[in-house]
């Protein structure tokens, strides 16, 4: 239960926690977008420091963020190394066939590495400081215009919030079923690939059966409580846009100007 960091919410009362989830969502998407335009060393430094400052402002300890990076570290290193050996330019330190290590290559490898790390850190900031349910509301808000294209936004956001709500249950249940099958002599993660796949049946089937059963119950409950799709509905939790959020937008504009000025 304590493994998954991405998607986990850490209750708190920091400035970042208090911001409007809509602002946070937009900011994170925008920030990640900007990360692709950082071609200057100085810009990289600014963004790296900014990421660290935002992380510190959440008052969540650094080790939590690092745990979030860990599952992806091999992917990141792979991308970085690929970048280093395929980029040429500047002083060449090492050159065999298509493998080159050059000054340019090292620099863009570093940029790739930083970009990945910053992307993960900043999205972790979002999920650590925003309740999943607030995040769903924010997504709903941003998707709202799609209603005019007959996209069932209400239903999508309901589905999303129910799905998010049940992730912890599903994890708990997985652990329970695994334990029950282990007690009956099942050994997980042993044997060749085929055997391992087969070993998943006793785990996955009960989970499926149980989830389907619960989905059915849930649908009945929604029905009984009078939920109808396609209705216009009001919201119990209102999102409140504050002065801090407006300040945040100003920060976004400033960042944009900085990036543009370095790119001309």
């Amino acid at each position, binding site marked *: 239960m304590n493994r998954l960091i991405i998607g986990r919410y850490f209750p708190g009362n920091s400035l970042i926690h208090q911001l409007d989830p809509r602002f946070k969502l937009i900011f994170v998407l925008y920030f990640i977008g900007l990360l692709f335009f950082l071609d200057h060393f100085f810009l990289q430094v600014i963004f790296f420091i900014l990421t660290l400052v935002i992380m510190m402002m959440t008052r969540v300890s650094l080790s939590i963020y690092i745990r979030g990076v860990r599952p992806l570290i091999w992917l990141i290193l792979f991308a970085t190394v690929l970048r280093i050996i395929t980029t040429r330019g500047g002083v060449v330190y090492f050159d065999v066939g298509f493998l080159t290590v050059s000054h340019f290559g090292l620099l863009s490898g570093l940029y790739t590495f930083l970009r990945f790390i910053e992307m993960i850190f900043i999205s972790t900031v979002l999920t650590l400081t925003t309740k999943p349910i607030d995040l769903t509301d924010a997504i709903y808000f941003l998707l709202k215009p799609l209603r005019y294209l007959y996209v069932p936004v209400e239903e999508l956001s309901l589905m999303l919030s129910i799905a998010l709500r049940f992730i912890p249950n599903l994890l708990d249940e997985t652990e329970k079923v695994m334990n029950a099958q*282990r*007690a009956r*002599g099942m050994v997980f993660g042993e044997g060749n690939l085929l055997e391992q796949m087969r070993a998943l049946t006793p785990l996955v089937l009960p989970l499926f059966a149980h989830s389907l059963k619960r989905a059915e119950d849930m649908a009945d409950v929604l029905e009984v409580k009078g939920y109808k799709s396609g209705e216009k509905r009001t919201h119990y939790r209102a999102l409140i846009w504050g002065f801090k959020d407006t300040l945040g937008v100003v920060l976004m504009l400033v960042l944009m100007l900085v990036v543009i000025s370095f790119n001309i």
Partner: protein
Amino acid sequence: MNITFNRVSANYQLGPIKQENILRDLTAEVLPGSFTAVIGPTGAGKSSLLKLINGLLLPSVGEVSVGEVVFTAKASKEALKQVRKRVGMAFQFPEHQLFADTVYEDLAFGPRNFNMSEKEIETTIKEVCQLTGIDRSLLERSPFSLSGGQQRRVAIAGILATKPDILVLDEPAAGLDPEAKKQILDMLYDLHTAEKLTTLMVTHDMDDVAYYADDAIVMAEGQIKAHQDVRTLFANQDLLDQYQLDVPTALSLQQQLEAAKGQRLKNRALTLTELANGLIEEGWV
């Protein structure tokens, strides 16, 4: 087979981040052939204690021994397999573990994992069906198409099919109607006596403790607070009050009668039969 806990602490820690121990400094010995109830408030660590017995949870400090096998912070795969073959473990709501196409296949799952021959499996399944009252016609049905009570029987039969020497039961009758509950518990109790099994059962119902158990382990806040003979336990009102444990129906009735009459009976009755006998002896009725 003996089960002993020797100064065991354990937690659900994963990875490097330190967590407080959920079970702390447990020492206890469960005698072979005994029926031991594990009681205590919710969150006391009862289920976790049971998991220690077949190595689903390993001690961080101390050691657990089951027969000759000893678990410490590290356990070999061999030791785990050996113990899990001997320990039949029914979790809370065991029907959530059913998965196979047919009831027969599900019952055969455990025995196959422990390398029983198909022939042996067939006879064993016949036996456990008889024992648990599963009709032979159900064997070819899908376990998911059965009623809740039937599923529970199949799940428990699947655990008995591995022929364990030790039964570990986590609220085996939770959520069943009184009739089905009594049937299942009576069946397990009969099996316990007939096969001389060592049984541990978590329960919230003090009547179960009074009717089936020889001794009881009282847990609270991750510690074993008492391990006593059932009669001693229910004679110790202070202990019961301290851990908010109820008394069996018969005893509660006795206490009410005593209060109304202003006199006391000689013995504390644990079952209704005992109470009736006590009342007759003292000439109250």
